[in-house]
């Protein structure tokens, strides 16, 4: 999916998600691939009581058999298939929702990791959509999904990226691998004041689910 239009300046909290773009040849290969985000004024830190309580409530909805059945549900299945299609093994590099489900079984509950992680986790558990957060003040321009060019590197990562690696990038450089590590300095850290909550959409994930996930995460952060 290629969304056109320019990025809007953010004043306060604008709840309408911004649409990023996907490199045309990738959009042809992977119809339905997209990136959208919401910027929100928020500081990373300890999660407030209601957020921790919500995580506890969500913990009670996840059981072993449900987790096994999870991969048959449309949105988690869509991410699993996309992981396969880009060469990853979703049982090793787990999709975000499956990683959360696995952690829930392993730890006995969804543990609180503070904000923004808890906000993203709540939204992912509720919708199944893959989310991540960046320090919005470090990003320049619109986000995109593209493949790395020859000799391109990622901050904090020694050496060059293998050409053709799928990345999330701003208008300057890669800010993270697609469904992988975040570039150094771009993650939400203690000194961050504004966060970009980013959703990666794949074929089979409805637009409404992406918007809901972003709103939910942004509302939790605020």
């Amino acid at each position, binding site marked *: 999916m290629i969304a056109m239009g320019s990025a809007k300046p953010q004043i306060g909290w604008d709840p309408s998600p911004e649409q990023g773009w996907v490199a045309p040849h990738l959009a042809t*290969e992977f119809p339905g691939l997209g990136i959208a985000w919401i910027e929100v004024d928020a500081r990373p830190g300890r999660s407030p009581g209601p957020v921790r309580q919500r995580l506890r409530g969500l913990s009670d909805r996840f059981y072993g058999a449900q987790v096994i059945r999870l991969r048959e549900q449309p949105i988690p*299945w869509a991410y699993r*298939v996309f992981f*396969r299609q*880009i060469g990853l093994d979703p*049982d090793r590099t787990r999709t975000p929702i499956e990683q959360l489900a696995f952690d829930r079984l392993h730890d006995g509950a969804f543990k609180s990791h503070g904000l923004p992680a808890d906000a993203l986790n709540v939204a992912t558990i509720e919708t199944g959509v893959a989310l991540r957060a960046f320090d919005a003040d470090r990003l320049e321009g619109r986000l995109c999904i593209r493949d790395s060019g020859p000799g391109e590197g990622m901050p904090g990562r020694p050496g060059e990226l293998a050409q053709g690696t*799928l990345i999330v990038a701003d208008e300057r450089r890669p800010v993270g*691998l*697609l469904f*992988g590590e975040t570039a150094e300095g771009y993650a939400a850290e203690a000194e961050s004041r504004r966060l970009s909550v980013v959703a990666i959409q794949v074929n089979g994930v409805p637009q409404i689910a992406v918007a809901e996930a972003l709103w939910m995460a942004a509302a939790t952060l605020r």
Partner: protein
Amino acid sequence: MPDLLARESSPALLVEVDERLARAELRRQIGRLERELSALLAEGFGRVAVEHRVEAVVAEPRVLDLGELERLRDELAERVADARGTLREQERIEVDNQELLRRMIAAPADYKWVRVSRDDLGLPGCGHWHSRPRLGPIGMLMGWWRVKVSSGCPLAGRLAAVEQ
């Protein structure tokens, strides 16, 4: 003949093959196989271990070429076939055990000390059927055999008491 050979190597006859459609079709097949494999894994959950892993093709995400997609599709197809085989075999064992249980209930003395669990029948939960003598050694000597049904899963309170 030399004319024909010359024509075959003519640049006008060289056709560039667009592999995009082939890749799209392979991706569609991978999606369908992934769904089947997930369903088979869920079907076997708690009954039998279904081999479902297919190793990653690459270390980091990228667009796979036709050959890689084909290999991935073939491996997934192989896993699906293996999983179906495992489940069929498990189903056969469970049907045999159901028959054994039916015969055991009909004639407990013919199946002395045989124990069939709910697991053996592919049923969820705890419990078993056990062919045992009534009144212990007396029943053994007299040939008074019966099938005793266990009372199911231990209650959480009793488990906690054991731990204490």
